[in-house]
Every structure is written in structure tokens, then in C-alpha cells.
């Protein structure tokens, strides 16, 4: 992927790079990199420790990065521990992704009011004022994969989301390849992996054998421009081998964790499987899984008025676990939690292919760790698709039952409704 030509060492930067080049950078070089991004006018978000987890936050220097922090993740559980090693990227993704930067949780789209003559006047909403020049520093390869999934949904469509597209086009992506996946990570099963392959400006691999250093690969002209401002030294064959050892170790730790082959068809053919009912007895319908997912894009657009008569149109994150998410005339369509869980899982792993030509899941594992009751979607998908539970197509062609039209759903109606 990178030319292994020797680039002269360049204290304080100055060496010339092109996409495909690689160089070695000391930890202090990352400080120069962050300073260079700031100098080029980028607002940088990167990994920080807050609230007991690694989450994206403003980073200005390596002091802000999670030095020595290691995570331990399992379904419904996350803990951080501090070691003495000083490594900066020995953790897997936490609950936050870069999604909120491009697709904010609450976004006022526009306001409208009547002027003195009764004419309606529209003005831009308050949601769109932040600078669109962002740098996403230390993004994991699965973040990159998630952004390319979101691109298909929010940009490659009839009505692209201008805010998302604006931030996305202007963003610098500095990827940190993975050396320490969590037990919940399964990107290799979803077509990804611990290596950054494409779509980045710079890709870092942290090397901790011998001296602490970073192998930096250049993915774009912009990345080359940034790296030009950083002190580098040439990459040796030993560094290349060390990088391969890091990502290979990560890959083999994850391999075989989840068998996604044929899943899309198997799930679609098992929509009446009893497991949906069983998982709904554990599922809280709290929506955490969808909101931590870096590819979930559902939103809800509502108009409100204020006391002065101004109308506000606001887009907010929504979840298929909300009762009101499937509200149509007369009431919600997906009344039972079983039907909502099924919607979530089959959309991620099956119908997303039909809709967008990709999987809706990149295997980041967030929905597994951050489910308060530790529901592991890999186990649920496997149970629904296991050969021991044959596919049942009997009701496949029938539409979801609709609630009768009329007033709102009476209290307690949920209990009476059979799946779905």
C-alpha cells in the first residue's frame, strides 16, 4: 500500500510526501500534526477520556489523548484501566462515534415567521452555524467504514443532507489502525479489518516494540500537506514488519467471532422465528443500541411553535425501538418489542443490502457493549439463523398488522397485541 522508498529525516517537517508514501513519527510528532491541523484551520476531535470511557472530544495536543488507558468490554459492560505503558491507542471504540459531528442529535433546520404584512419568511435554523472544517483524529477503521455506509444513505441519494455533506467533504480523517480490539469487535466478519485501506488522509499505526513510534501512511494530497509540517524519519523494513504484526494480531484475535455468510437471506427467511419473542423479553426497548451505532441514521422531524408565533422545524435522532417511531394514522405499526427488535436486526444485517447495497453493520460492537442488559446481536442473529431452527415462510408475505384507525392506542394495548 505504501512505497517503501526511504524519505530523508526531516526535523520540524519539510519532507515532501505524496499519497502512498509512508514515514515514521515519534509521539511528539503527533503534537506537530495536531498543531498543523489547527494552523490549517481545522477544529479537531479525537479520543479523550471522559466519564470513564474513551470518547471523541476536542484535542489540541497529545496531552489530551488517552495515554496508558486500556478498555475491557463485554456485553453490557465497559471498564477502563490505566497502565504504565504510555501507549495512546490501546483501546477499542467507546460509546461515542464521529456521527454526531456530521449528523447532530438535535438540529434545528429552519424557522419561519410572518412579517408585518402577513408574508411568511423563512430563516436558517440555529443548527447549521458551526464551522464545517473538522479533523477527525484517531478515528478507527470501522469509523471510516461507518462513514462510507452513512455516505450512501445521506449523500448518494435524491435529496442529500447538506449539513452532513458539507462536514464530510471538508473533513480531514486521521485514522488510527487497531492493535487492541475488544471482545465485542467483529469488523473482520463484516468486510472490514484493523487496517485502514482507503478513504483516509493519514493512517497511523502505533508501534510499541522498541521505541514508541508511529508508522504514518499518506492517503491523500491533504494528508501529504499535513505530514509535510511534521518531523519524520524514514520507515525501515523492520517498522513495516512491526506494523503488519500489530494488525495481524488484531485480525486473528477477531477472526471467526461471527459468521455473517448468508445472513441477509437467512434473517429475511426467519421473520417468524420464536427467538424474536424470546429476545424481546430481555430487551428494554431503551434505544441505546441504535443511538450508539455509527450507521443508524433514523431521525424525526417535528415542527413546533413558540409563544411569539415563530415556527421551528427540528430534526432529532430517532430509534426504531420507540413506540412512536412507527406511528402512522391511528397508532404505531410495530407495537410489540419483538417486532421492533426484529426491525433493528433485520435492517442492519439484511434489508440494508436491498436498500443501500451494503451491510448496515460494520462490526464495531458498540450496540453489544452499551446495551444495558447485554444483548449481543451476534448471538441473536445466530440463534435466529441456526439450522436447528428452520426457516418458516408461512407468514412472510403478509403485511404487518395495522392497528385499527381511530383514537390513540388505549393504555395496555401493547400487552394484547401478538407479534408483530
Amino acid at each position, binding site marked *: 500500500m505504501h512505497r517503501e522508498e526511504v524519505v530523508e529525516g526531516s526535523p520540524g517537517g519539510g519532507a515532501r510526501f505524496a499519497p502512498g508514501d509512508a514515514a515514521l513519527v515519534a509521539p511528539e510528532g503527533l503534537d506537530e500534526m495536531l498543531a498543523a491541523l489547527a494552523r490549517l484551520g481545522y477544529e479537531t476531535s479525537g479520543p479523550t477520556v471522559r466519564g470513564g470511557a474513551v470518547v471523541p472530544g476536542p484535542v489540541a495536543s497529545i496531552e489530551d489523548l488517552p495515554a496508558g488507558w486500556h478498555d475491557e468490554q463485554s456485553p453490557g459492560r*465497559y471498564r477502563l484501566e490505566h497502565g504504565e505503558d504510555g501507549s495512546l491507542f490501546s483501546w477499542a471504540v467507546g460509546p461515542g462515534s464521529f456521527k454526531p459531528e456530521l449528523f447532530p442529535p438535535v438540529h434545528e433546520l429552519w424557522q419561519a415567521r410572518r412579517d408585518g404584512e402577513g408574508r411568511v419568511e423563512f430563516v436558517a435554523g440555529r443548527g447549521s452555524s458551526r464551522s464545517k472544517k473538522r479533523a477527525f483524529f484517531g478515528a478507527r477503521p470501522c469509523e471510516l467504514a461507518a462513514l462510507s455506509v452513512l455516505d450512501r444513505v445521506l449523500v448518494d441519494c435524491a435529496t442529500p443532507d447538506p449539513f452532513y455533506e458539507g462536514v464530510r467533504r471538508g473533513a480531514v480523517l486521521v485514522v488510527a489502525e487497531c492493535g487492541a480490539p475488544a471482545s465485542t469487535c467483529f469488523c473482520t466478519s463484516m468486510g472490514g479489518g484493523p487496517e485502514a485501506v482507503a478513504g483516509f488522509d493519514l493512517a497511523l499505526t502505533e508501534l510499541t516494540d522498541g521505541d514508541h513510534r508511529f508508522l504514518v501512511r499518506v492517503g491523500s494530497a491533504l494528508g501529504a500537506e499535513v505530514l509535510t509540517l511534521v518531523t519524520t524519519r524514514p520507515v525501515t523494513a523492520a517498522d513495516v514488519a512491526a506494523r503488519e504484526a500489530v494488525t495481524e494480531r488484531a485480525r486473528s484475535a477477531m477472526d471467526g467471532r461471527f459468521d455473517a455468510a448468508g445472513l441477509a437471506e437467512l434473517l429475511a427467511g426467519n421473520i417468524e422465528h420464536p427467538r424474536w419473542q424470546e429476545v424481546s423479553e430481555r430487551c428494554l426497548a431503551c434505544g*441505546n443500541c441504535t443511538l450508539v451505532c455509527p450507521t443508524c441514521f433514523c431521525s424525526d422531524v417535528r*415542527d413546533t411553535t413558540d409563544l411569539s408565533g415563530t415556527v421551528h422545524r427540528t430534526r432529532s435522532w430517532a430509534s426504531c425501538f*420507540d413506540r*412512536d417511531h412507527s406511528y402512522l394514522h391511528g397508532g404505531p405499526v410495530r407495537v410489540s418489542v419483538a417486532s421492533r427488535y426484529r426491525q433493528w436486526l433485520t435492517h442492519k444485517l439484511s434489508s440494508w443490502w436491498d436498500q443501500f447495497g451494503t451491510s448496515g453493520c460494520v462490526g464495531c460492537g458498540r450496540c453489544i*457493549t452499551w446495551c444495558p*442488559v447485554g444483548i449481543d446481536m451476534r448471538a441473536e442473529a445466530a440463534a435466529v439463523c441456526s439450522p436447528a431452527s428452520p426457516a418458516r415462510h408461512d407468514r412472510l408475505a403478509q403485511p404487518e398488522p395495522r392497528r385499527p384507525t381511530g383514537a390513540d392506542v388505549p393504555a395496555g394495548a401493547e400487552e394484547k397485541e401478538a407479534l408483530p
Partner: protein
Amino acid sequence: MSTTRPSLAVFKFTSCDGCQLSLLDCEDELLELARAVRIAKFAQMSRALVEGPYDIALVEGSVTTARDAERVKEIRASSRQLVTIGACASAGGIQALRNFVPAGSYTGVVYAHPEYISSLATSTPISSHVDVDFELHGCPIDRHQLLEVITALLAGRRPVVRGYSVCQECKARGTVCLLVARGTACMGPVTRAGCGGLCPAVGRGCFGCFGPADTVNTGSLAARLRRDGMQARDVARLFKTFNAAAPEFRVQSAAEEAAGEEGRG
């Protein structure tokens, strides 16, 4: 416009007054509100009293006396839209703990002269007595939600007040989950949003002030808390606070207490 302003009246039953105080708490919007509605009855703000009927009645507090039960019917009859505000009016409040014990058990503990007290055996929400147009939850309610409900009623639209879980507010504001990252007991997954995820944002598990969300699975949350080592009687206590008598919470606290007595907690 001023002559046709809709009228707003505030009524109180058994409660602490905190919810109606939220109306005064709307400091920035209060003048604008007073221009949009005629405040016909609001004892915390003015002695002036305009007789009904009223366009919008905000009702705080639960029904705990025979007189309350009569008065709530009179209020209903003289109000076009009746909105209950707070956990007391919408679920019976903390005082509904009396519903769990034989009548009069707490009176002797609380009052020096229980013989002066004449009250019903239960504390019940307004909706147990009359039809209610909108229930605004919370202990106390959120003032932004209160303004939203009043504004929506004035505009003739449906209030944007969501019934999903507090967890969704944590995620929207970027709070790292206390339950997952620290093992802190939290009622958020079964509690209605509205506070903005206030307590988890400052490191305290959700108390459940806003009562049950639209869809809840209290049994699964309770099972997780017990797996983390919480005693069943302590889990029961989580469900027995300001919304103890809300049906979904009442069922779970009873189940936990039964489990505790069997000794499996």
C-alpha cells in the same frame, strides 16, 4: 388580541407546589406567556381570581381527601383543556406509598395529632377521577416541557413531548452510560424522557422522576441490577419513589419484595 386571550388557571391538590413553581421559573418567557394567555387563577403569582370557565387548567397534586374528589370534578366541568402536571397529579406521587400499607399506617407516624386528619386510604392520580387531556410527567416537571404543552394547546397542535427512555437523552447529550461503564444502578432505561438526562450527566443514576416510559421492561432491568449484586429489596425501593403507584413500577416493586421475602434476593 388581548380581549380574546385564552385563560389559564392553576389548581393544586396534594403536592409540594414544586410543579406549579416551574411556571414562575419560566422567567425569560413569563412576560410573553402573560401576553399569550390571561392568567386567571394562579395563587403563587397573584391573589386576583377570575371566575371560570377556563380554557386551560393546569392541575397539580393527587386526590387524597373526599373533598379533593369532589373538587376535581368541579374543575373538570369548568375547564376546556385539563392538563395534569407532575408525578402526584399523573401517578399519585410519593404520598401514594400509603396505597401499599393498611389505611392510616403512616398518619400516626407523621402527625402529632392524627385524630385531626381526615383523608382517603389512597392517593390517586387525577385521571382516576376525571378525563384528562394531557398528562405532563416529572417530579418536578420540566419547565421547557410545560411551555411546550401550553404553546401547543394555544396553537391547536399536538405537544412534542416524547415518551421514550431517559437513555436516549443521555445518548443525545453524550453522557457515558453509568450502568455500563460504572455499574451504577439507573432507572433510565424504564423512565420517560423529559429531564434531559440530568442526573446521569452529573454521575447519579436516574431516580425515575418522570415515571414509566411508553414501553418498559422493568423485569429485565431489575434482573440486571440483581445480577450486579443488588438485593431485591433495594431494587424494590428504586421502583417505589415518586411514581410508586404507576402500574408498571408498582408491579415490579411488588415482585421484588416478594422475591426478597422468599430470600432469593
